[in-house]
């Protein structure tokens, strides 16, 4: 297969994964292929400014819809953290001008993990918690967002964050994280999805 896939290259039946993807299991390679859906390419963290009174911090933490490029950059960074996790299989036009990106991941034995275990695991790797399921490590300016129990699995005595949102924050977003940690605060993420769901 080339990188431009046709619907015929993909199986007739898929199942819905999380919010972002349809899934199918490639038994020959024991990998899950993930197809973006509804023209949505995951989320990208950042801040926006709200209208607030003078004594309030106007900055709000948001998870925005990502562009296709941001989605691919996120997967590339994810591969730097979890080697060999994501492979780009191609892009496909499922119909009606929609573009979908097809990637794959190895299948994991899906052993569940608790939020407390995820907190402890990231803490042991030098991260500080900045929000629910969100962690930041200043040493290499690395943020990991959306690391909740559906996106992380246990593998023996370690964890595998297989569907999290890593990022290298900069500018105002980085200052917001630094200020939040310096004050000992945590923030609550607001998801912002603008594309109508089909």
């Amino acid at each position, binding site marked *: 297969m080339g990188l431009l896939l046709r619907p015929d290259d993909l199986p007739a039946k898929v199942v819905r*994964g999380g919010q972002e993807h349809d899934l199918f*299991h490639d038994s020959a390679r024991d990998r899950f292929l993930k*197809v973006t859906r509804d023209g949505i390419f995951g989320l990208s963290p950042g801040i926006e400014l709200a209208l607030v009174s003078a004594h309030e911090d106007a900055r709000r933490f948001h998870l925005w819809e990502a562009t296709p490029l941001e989605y691919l950059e996120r997967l590339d960074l994810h591969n*730097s953290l979890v080697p060999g*996790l994501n492979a780009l299989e191609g892009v496909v036009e499922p119909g009606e001008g929609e573009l979908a990106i097809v990637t794959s991941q190895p299948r994991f034995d899906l052993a*569940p993990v608790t939020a407390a275990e995820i907190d402890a695991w990231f803490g042991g*790797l030098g991260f500080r918690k900045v929000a629910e399921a969100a962690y930041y490590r200043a040493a290499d300016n690395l943020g990991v967002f959306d690391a909740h129990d559906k996106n992380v699995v246990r593998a*023996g005595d370690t964890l595998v964050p297989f569907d999290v949102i890593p990022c290298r924050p900069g*500018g105002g977003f980085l200052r917001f994280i630094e200020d939040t940690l310096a004050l000992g605060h945590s923030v609550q993420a607001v998801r912002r999805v603008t594309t109508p769901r089909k």
Partner: protein
Amino acid sequence: MNRATIPEPGVKPLLTPERMARILSARRSTTSAAAYQQVATHLGRPASPGRRKSSVNGRAAWVCC
């Protein structure tokens, strides 16, 4: 120097390639049906159908569910 122009340090991996190789080699073999069932259990909901392949104007297309 402007903060934005400082080169980013490399990231320290969360897992090493050797660790990932051991994790993957330790997986239990399974069927696709069992793999889908594991996903449903993990997500806490039945595996609902995603897009299905259909013919639109004589061409194969995926139709959203």
